[in-house]
């Protein structure tokens, strides 16, 4: 075909745009080999997808002021919501904050960028026990943000001093005779994990009959369970709707602030310990800003402010020196050594994972 110079110009432009798009796509596919980021480098605004109410109010304005960019925040209330949004790709976020097991799923699905650890010098601030987590060896794709335990919030004003035990939700003699109802999390691994702890079994079991025993326990507990609730359990406990609630440490402590008659207990049979970690999506539009943000959160004073705001313990060793000693010494925030020994991470059970969700839904639907 003949082309006039003018047309040729347009053709060249179209080719150039096509090449750019192709390059951008290739960059997205091979994200690990993307341009290197320098510490403190920013390449645009930060698109942050985080849990609802999970950063102290000064963090985002401080980051915006220091680096002269905007932070656009969006929120989710469960790992499943996060996974559903990002697993298809093209979600358009830079930094996300999945929990340990969700990090593993996202790594396996190729949703996360391999971190350029040189761009995050403050990684040195992490506590030694957080530098090589089982869900993401060597923190290759994620950096711990906060951690905590899953236990029971109890209305001790009504029940008096009770034994810290899963019997409060599973034993017909105890839970069945409470002057009120209980609530359990709407989460297969957490609820079946609690039942397995109560039975003295491994919370990461891959034994069908052990899991079935746990599911039977959960099904039996339906009689005194008001709801399976991961969003408003602390409010239901405080308002008297339930007298025992299964949930995450920090949420209870925040809700109990200024109230008498409530306590957070870690059951003596053992409980779940978890980590929420910052990670960068493989197709993040601004990977350098994302690295810089993670480094910013890892500063000692930022870590301390986070823990003082939401009462979840920090994985940041440098931050501990700055945290209010009252919080550092509160066993409900920082579990004692004896309690820590009873805590277990929920681990990947491979192909057995679907048995957990299936049996949980059967026991609770």
């Amino acid at each position, binding site marked *: 075909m003949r082309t006039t110079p003018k047309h040729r110009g347009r053709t060249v432009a179209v080719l150039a745009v096509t090449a750019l798009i192709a390059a951008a796509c290739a960059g997205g596919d091979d994200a690990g080999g993307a341009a290197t980021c320098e510490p403190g480098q920013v390449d645009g605004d930060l698109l942050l997808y985080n849990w609802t109410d999970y950063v102290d109010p000064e963090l985002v304005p401080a980051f915006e002021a220091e680096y002269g960019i905007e932070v656009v925040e969006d929120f989710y209330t469960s790992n499943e919501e996060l*996974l559903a949004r990002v697993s298809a790709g093209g979600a358009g976020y830079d930094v996300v904050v999945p929990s340990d097991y969700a990090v593993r799923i996202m790594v396996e699905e190729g949703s996360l960028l391999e971190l350029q650890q040189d761009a995050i010098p403050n990684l040195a601030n992490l506590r030694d026990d957080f530098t090589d987590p089982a869900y993401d060896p060597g923190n290759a794709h994620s950096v711990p943000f906060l951690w905590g335990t899953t236990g029971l919030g109890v209305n001790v004003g009504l029940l008096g001093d009770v034994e810290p035990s899963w019997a409060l939700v599973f034993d017909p003699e105890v839970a069945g005779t409470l002057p009120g*109802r209980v609530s359990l999390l709407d989460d*297969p691994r957490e609820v079946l994990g609690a039942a397995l702890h109560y039975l003295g079994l491994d919370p990461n079991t891959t034994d069908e009959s052990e899991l079935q025993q746990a599911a039977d326990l959960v099904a039996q507990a339906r009689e005194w369970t*008001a709801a399976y609730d991961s969003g408003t359990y602390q409010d239901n406990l405080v308002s*008297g*709707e339930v007298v025992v609630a299964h949930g995450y440490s920090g949420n209870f402590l925040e809700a109990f602030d200024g109230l008498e008659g409530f306590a957070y207990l870690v059951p003596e049979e053992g409980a779940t310990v978890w980590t929420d970690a910052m990670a960068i999506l493989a197709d993040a539009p601004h990977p350098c800003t994302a690295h810089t943000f993670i480094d910013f959160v890892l500063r000692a004073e930022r870590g301390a402010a986070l823990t003082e705001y939401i009462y979840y313990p920090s994985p940041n060793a440098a931050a501990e020196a700055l945290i209010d000693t009252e919080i550092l010494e509160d066993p409900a925030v920082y579990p004692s050594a004896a309690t820590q020994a009873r805590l277990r991470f929920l681990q990947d059970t491979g192909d057995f994972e679907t048995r957990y969700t299936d049996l949980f*839904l059967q026991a609770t639907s």
Partner: protein
Amino acid sequence: MRATAPGGAPAALRSDLPRDGESPERAAARLAARRGALIALPPIATMTLLFVIPLAIVAVYSFATRGRTGRTVLGDWNIAAYARLGEPLVLEVVGRSLGYAVLTTAICLVIGYPFAYWLTTRPMRVRAVMIVLVMLPFWSNLLVRTYAWRVLLASDGPIPAAFAALGLGELRLLFTPFAVVLGLVYGYLPFMVLPLYAALERLDLRLVEAARDLGASGWEAFRHVTWPLSRPGVVAGSVLVMVPTFGAYVTPELLGGSRTTLVGSFVVRQFLSARDWPFGSALSMAILLLMLVATVVYFRLQEDRA
């Protein structure tokens, strides 16, 4: 008849010309039909874009496979998700949902029918005010209104407090089946009242008077005159209440508890908790089909009877 007019004229004009052997009337009718199709284009396009295509995507996912991590694998097509629809758990949840839907519809009818009848006996001005009052709740979001019920029904809320103050003991309403039915009736009552009112308003009261003059009792006049004539309103209202309550999500999720899982929540849990999109999609398709068949059968039965 030749399919195309003589060549030369642009395609758009060609079909406007009378075809060989076609009467001018038929040509005009054909033209009108074509204009009609043009007017119908925007709604057809909207339905295709916002209903047919998403539904097709759900249908495709229902034949896919759940991967190890929960990500849906497109390919390796199978009907495993549909095979699970017969599981006792699924039947239990569907049965429970049907029960709640039927109960809610019955309560709405029992409350809505006398109210709609009473409305038709009021002066025009009162009717207008009452109709606005019936529709008023729609001006605020269902989620907000359901949360308001949570406050009212909560153990430290006004209703249990009043109950306790009367010395009637402790009342637990939130997270119970009662709360779910209450929330559903509250949310869908207007859908019953409005079609009933429309049907009863058209009712010629002279027919009822004639029945009474001919010796029918009040009940007989209602049974044989008013009720049959208002049946289109009853059918429309019942379908408008039953179909959405069967698949309701917000109300049972917020007001219900451990024993009131209905299909709406069950499907959502497949997508979020279980990360089993194929099964969730198959469930959605089955529910859609069930409701479609039920509605068609229901309308047919009522037509036959009328």
